[in-house]
C-alpha cells in the first residue's frame, strides 16, 4: 500500500473541506490509514483554504511536509500558483481554470496576475489545467468543483467509480445527488478517463 500526500487548495466557500472529508472517508473504507488537517477560523471569511489529506499503511503527522505533496488539486488558478512549491518535483498537479478575484483588488493595492495559466505551465509543464469553468456551466451548478476534483482524483487510483460514488452520495445533500454524480463523471472525463 503506497502512501500518498494529497493537497487541496482554493478559496473559502468552494467546498474544499467537504471534498477532503469525502476523500478521507473513501480511503478509510478501502483500508488505508488516513489523517487530514486544515485550519478553520479566520481563513473562512473569503480567505485562502488548504487541506491536507494523507493516506498510507500508517500515517503519523496530519500535515504534509512542504515540497512533499504527491498530488495537488487546486480549485482556483491563482491558488495553484501560490501552492506550487508544496508539490514534489514529480508530483501531479490538477488545477481548475476558474478565477476568483479577491475583494482587495478594489482598493487598487493589488492586481490579479494576468498570465496565471502560462506561469503555472512554465514552471510545471506537466500540470493539468481543467476547464472547470465550462464544466460548471454545463452542469448548471457552480458549487460542484469539489466533486469534479474527486472525479479527477479517482482516475489516479484503481478503485471502481461506484465505490467512490457510494461515499459521495452519502456526503452531499439529497437534492443535489444527481448533479454531483454528473460532476464526478465530468471530473473523470476531463482527465481523459
Amino acid at each position, binding site marked *: 500500500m503506497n502512501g500518498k500526500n494529497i493537497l487541496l487548495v482554493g*478559496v473559502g466557500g468552494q467546498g474544499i473541506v467537504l471534498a477532503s*472529508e469525502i476523500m*478521507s*472517508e473513501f480511503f*478509510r473504507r478501502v483500508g488505508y*490509514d*488516513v*489523517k*487530514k*488537517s*486544515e*485550519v*478553520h*477560523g*479566520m*481563513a*473562512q*471569511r*473569503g*480567505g*485562502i483554504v488548504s487541506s491536507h489529506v494523507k493516506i498510507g499503511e500508517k*500515517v*503519523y*503527522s*496530519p*500535515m*504534509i*511536509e*512542504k*515540497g*512533499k505533496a504527491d498530488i495537488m488539486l487546486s480549485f482556483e488558478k*491563482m*491558488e495553484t*500558483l*501560490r501552492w*506550487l*512549491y*508544496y508539490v514534489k518535483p514529480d508530483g501531479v498537479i490538477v488545477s481548475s481554470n476558474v478565477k476568483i*478575484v*479577491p*475583494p*482587495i*483588488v*478594489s*482598493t487598487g*493595492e*493589488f*492586481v*490579479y*496576475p494576468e498570465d496565471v495559466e502560462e*506561469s503555472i505551465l512554465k514552471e510545471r509543464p506537466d500540470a493539468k489545467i481543467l476547464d472547470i469553468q465550462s464544466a460548471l456551466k454545463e452542469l448548471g451548478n457552480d458549487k460542484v468543483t469539489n466533486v469534479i476534483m474527486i472525479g479527477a482524483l479517482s482516475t489516479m487510483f484503481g478503485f471502481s467509480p461506484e465505490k467512490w460514488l457510494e461515499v459521495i452520495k452519502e456526503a452531499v445533500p439529497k437534492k443535489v445527488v444527481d448533479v454531483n454524480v454528473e460532476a464526478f463523471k465530468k471530473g473523470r472525463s476531463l482527465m481523459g478517463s
Partner: protein
Amino acid sequence: MKVLLSGNEAIARGAYEYGCVFAAAYPGTPSTEILENISQYKEIKCQWSPNEKVATEVAIGASFAGGRALCAMKHVGVNVAADPLMTLSYIGVKGGFIIVSADDPGMHSSQNEQDNRNYAKFAKIPLLEPSDSQEAKDFVGYGFEISEKFDTPVLIRLTTRTSHGKGIVELGDRKEVKVKGFERDFTKYVALPMNARKRRFVVEEREKRLKEYVEKCELNRIEEGKGNIGFITSGISYVHLKEVLPDAPILKLGMPYPLPIEKIKNFVKRFDKVIVVEELDPFLEEQIKAHGIEVYGKEFFPEIGEFSPEVVRNGLYKAGVLKEENKVEVKEKAIPRPPVFCPGCPHLGIFYALKRARAKIVTGDIGCYTLAAIKPFEIMDTCVCMGASIGNAIGMEKVLGSGKGIAAVIGDSTFVHSGITGLIEAVYNKSTITIVISDNSITAMTGGQPDVRTGFNCEGEETKRMDFKELAEAIGVEHVYVVNPINMDDTFKIVKRELEADHLSLIISQAPCVLYPQKVKREKFYVELENCTGCALCSKIGCQAIYRTEEKTEKGHYKWDIDVALCTGCGLCIQLCKFDAIRPISRKGE
C-alpha cells in the same frame, strides 16, 4: 466500529463514552466544536456560558454534585477561567473534572500563542496531552479516572492540529457513571483561608502520589528504536517526529505533568544524547534540566510558531541527526486574500457611520468586527483581549483629558463575556466616552454559536433574550440609543452627536448577522451601469459584493458594479447612490 473524527469530535465522543453528564464552554477557535459535538449526545447536559470563567464554575458545580463534568475553551479562555481553576486545585473534585484547553501555536486565529501546559504546573494539576484523535478520546477516560482517583481537576491540552486534524478512531459504548450527589464537607468545599491552608498540604501530598503514578502510567511509554540518540516528546510534536524519524527511540509523554523523572533518567542513561522535541515553550526541557539531567532542545528547535514536519526535520538537521534539511522555499507569486466582512454584514453600517463622524480614536475588541482595523475601514485602533475596548477607551480618556471623539466598539457576545464590567466602570468613574455595541445577536466569529441575544440555547431550546438597553439603564447609563445600522443617516446623526457630547453614551447598533443563525434572504440589488458616474461612493462601505469594473465613464472614472450572486440585499449602497444606478432586482428591465 471505526470512524474518522477530529480531535474535538473525539473529545466529545470520549465525554459520551466515559460517562460525562455535564459540559459547558464558551466558543473560541480551535476549541468550539467540542461542545457543538457534545450537544449531539442527549445523555450529556450542556450549555454555552457567557464566558470561560462561568463555564468552568458551572462545570465545577456539576462535579461537586458528584457528576463527571467537562469544560472546554481556547487557550486564552483559560486566562479568564484561571481564578476558579487555581483554587479548584486545592479543593479537588467529587465527580471527575476535566478542563480542555485548545491552544493555537502559530496564531491561526488568536491574539497570542501562550503555551497552556504551563497552567498544569502553575495550578499543580495533572496534564494530559493527546497526539491524535484516538488518544483524544481515550485520554478523556484516563482524565476522569485520574481526576477521581487523585481528587484533582485534570487539564487536557490540545493544539490546533490535534483539535482540527482528523484521524481514525475506534468507537466504544457509553459507560454510565453514577452521579454521587453533593455532601456538605466544610473543610474541602469552602476555601476559607483556614481550610485552604490545610488543603495546600493536601495538594502537596497529591503531587507526590501523582509523581509516583506517572512513573508507572502507560501513557508515558518508551518506543524502542535505532541509534544512539533518544528523543523525548509529547502531543502533536510526537507525530511530526515519527513522520520524519519513524525508527527513532522515543519516550512519548502522554501525561507530561507531573514529569516522570525516574523514567526520564533511566531513558537518558541509555543514549549518547537525548533531544527534547516540543512546540512553543521549553516546558519539558527546563524541568528535566532542573533535575540535573543533560538534554538538548531549544538550541535546535524554535520556541516561536507552529511545528510541522519540515520544522522538525530542520531542527533535526541542526542537531546533526539528519544529513539533509528541507530547503523548499515559499515563492510569493499570488496576491493575498485577507479576510473581509461578509456582503451586507451589519457591522459595515456602524463603521461607516463612525468613519463619517470622524471618530478620533476607536478602541476595539475581538470578533468579526475587528476586521474594521484593516482595509478598507482602517478605523479600529486597538485590540487587546475580549472586553478590553471599554476599559482601554476609559484609560485613554483619563490621560488625554476628554472622552470626546473616543469610541469603544464591542460585539454582543464579547460585551456579555467581559464588557458589562467595563460599562459599570464607565458609569462609576464618570467617563464621557461613546460605547458602541455592534449587536448582530450571535457569536459570529467562531461560527455562529447562540448567545444571550439569540433567543435559543446550545440545545436549541427557546430562552430569554437579554435587553441591553434595560441593562445599561439599570447600571446607570443615562444616554442609551438603539439604532439600526442599515438606516445610515439616522445612525450617522446619533453617532456624531454622541461622539461630540460631554457625557457617557451607549449606542446599541442592532441588526442580524447575514450568516447565522440562518442566511438572510432579501431582495438583492444590481447596478444599471449606464447610470453609474464612477463617483465610487458605494465602494466606501467596504462591501465585497461591490467591485470596480474595467469600464470607464466619459470623464475617465472607473464604473462600479454589484456581484449579484454575493449581494445579500442589505440596502446600504443604495442609500449612497445619487444617480439611480443601484436598484433592487425587481426594477431590472424598466
